[in-house]
């Protein structure tokens, strides 16, 4: 038996619904239809009255979740695509994220964002907007890269007493498989060393972890040992694990599928440069998507976002510095 990243997300939600009567799921097409990607397949049947279709109203979806959280519930909101969460942005960044700080009443909501590029999805079904949410205080932003993390971090998200933006990568939905679901996991907020090495550190997250791992395998044939750090959570950001890795390798390449301006890669480089300047043997580098909307045609798309080839090329340049 094997289980996909998408099935892990479904199973985590089934688990949460089973374990905690305060959990419910609310989103577009999540009911009898089982969601646009089938992440809630059969859940309405298994948990009657707790998996509910919403109108196409992202603002009101999140607002309703905040009200329900005030009332002690633990809602999971499914955005059909991360791109559409901008319509609910106000409720996330002004209502949900400020509630605890203003009133001392926690706001335990999980907003699931199917995000990231897949071939042919174009400008409005491909975006990586995790950094925008990470910018706001009062939110936790998670970016699982593995089937195991998709499962355990979603369970963790529902258990956290704060609003969590759960960024699940659509490219990984069907591509990634595991033998079984995990019984234990790293805590939320801790990064993971996905591959050990001593020559260069690649810090990345979500689908780019896999591009980085392929690049590391390729570079190993050239004699380079690349360490890959999977951030898992971009807020909080596990600076300690990143810094320890850079201390071992002396070289840092940050890779993100998001746009470059002011994002996660910029944040990691800012922290390492200001707090660990002396650890660096070369100027830290980063690789992001190009600063244009995400293109539709596969040829353009493949050139727009980082791939194992462009990651390997960037790493080679940095290793020669």
């Amino acid at each position, binding site marked *: 038996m094997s289980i996909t990243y998408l099935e892990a997300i479904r199973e985590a939600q089934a688990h949460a619904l089973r374990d905690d009567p305060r959990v*419910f799921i609310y989103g577009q097409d999540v009911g009898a239809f089982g969601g646009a990607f089938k992440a809630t397949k059969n859940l309405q049947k298994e948990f009657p009255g707790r998996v509910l279709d919403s109108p196409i109203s992202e*603002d*009101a979806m999140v*607002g*309703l979740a905040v*009200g329900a959280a005030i009332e002690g519930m633990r809602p999971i909101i499914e955005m059909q695509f991360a791109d559409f969460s901008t319509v609910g942005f106000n409720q996330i960044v002004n*209502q949900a994220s400020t*509630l605890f700080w203003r009133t001392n009443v926690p706001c335990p909501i999980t907003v699931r964002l199917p995000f990231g590029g897949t071939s042919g999805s174009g400008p409005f079904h491909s975006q990586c907007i995790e950094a925008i949410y990470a910018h706001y205080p009062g939110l936790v932003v998670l970016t699982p890269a593995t089937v195991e993390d998709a499962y355990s971090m979603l369970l963790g998200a529902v258990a956290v*007493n704060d609003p969590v933006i759960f960024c699940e990568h659509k490219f990984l939905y069907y591509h990634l498989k595991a033998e079984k679901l995990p019984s234990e996991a790293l805590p939320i907020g801790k990064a993971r060393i996905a591959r050990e090495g001593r020559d260069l550190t690649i810090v990345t997250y979500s689908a780019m972890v896999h591009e980085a791992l392929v690049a590391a395998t390729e570079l190993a044939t050239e004699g380079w040992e690349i360490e890959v750090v999977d951030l898992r959570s971009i807020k909080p950001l596990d600076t300690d694990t990143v810094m320890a890795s850079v201390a071992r390798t002396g070289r840092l390449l940050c890779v993100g599928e998001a746009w470059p301006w002011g994002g996660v890669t910029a944040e990691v480089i800012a922290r390492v440069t200001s707090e660990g300047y002396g650890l660096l043997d070369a100027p830290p580098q980063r690789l992001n998507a190009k600063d244009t909307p995400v293109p539709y045609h596969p040829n353009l798309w493949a050139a727009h976002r980082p791939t194992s080839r462009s990651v390997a090329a960037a790493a080679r340049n940095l290793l020669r510095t």
Partner: protein
Amino acid sequence: MSQTVTESHTDGQIGSASDLHLAAFRFMLWARLLDEKFATLYRAGKIHGGVFLGRGQEALSAAIGVHLNKTDVFAPLIRDAAGRLAFGEPIIDAVRTYMGSALGPMRGRDGNVHRGKPQDGYLPMISHLGAMISVVNGVLFARRMKGIKGIVGAACLGEGATSTGAFHEALNQAAVEKLPLVLVVANNQFSYSTPNDRQFACADLAHKAVGYGVEAHSVAGNDFAACMEVVGRAVARARAGHGPQLVVADLLRLCGHGEHDDAGYIPPDMKNSPLGRDCMKLAEEFLLKKKFTDAAQIAVWRSEAVREIEDAVAQVQREPAPDPFAENWTALATENLSEGRE
């Protein structure tokens, strides 16, 4: 687990219509005097940030407040001092929030009209208009999931908020879910300075209800008796399971948007029209005409209110201001997930 709310509310205990009217009038009086005190403190430079008065909207606000139970949900807007008091907010909470006291419900982290106690169904507004409606929906939705019956949730807004996407999404959502929501729109003719002919093009905001499949109620918002009757009916309809109720009250704001605003954009003709009549005065006339009370009693209430307000202000002025060194500077309930703590 199924719960039914049976706790009776203030008006239920009072019993007769005249008692309910008197209770509402007293909240109006307290609110008017409290607002005037805030305006004085603002002019004296004792309040940080803005001051927003409910002058001219007290009848509508009190009417909604006295028709809610303590177990109901209330999301007031900026001009709802009367409704807040009627819903059970102590005067001291209002004063502490305006003056930024560390002992207030918002602890100096938020101020003025941004106050509430979500755990008591009293929701503190954010500044984005229309954004509280879906939060009220969420509380009602959750209570229904828990099997709690017989409650209503009221959200107050001005006519400007009806132009927002949040208003549309939330009213439609409430209608789809048939939630016991009472949406009270105080149409005070100006959204800050923008007149109605630049805000909406429908003949009557109450017409919007048809499009959402909800019931509508129109009322002259400065007519105290009419507000009590119409708002009471809307709340009763929602409580009885007839779904969301839209109340549109036409009135005039008898002050600026905030105390920084001289409202020079309100034409004198409008101020002198029936729309510009002061609801306090009309309420007093109504109570005296009906012989529900007399002028001497009103004078006693007024002096009681002044004393209570002065006492509250004097107390808060002696209270500690928030201490930045005592702040934990984390926005998360889960402290170990917080970033940037020293």
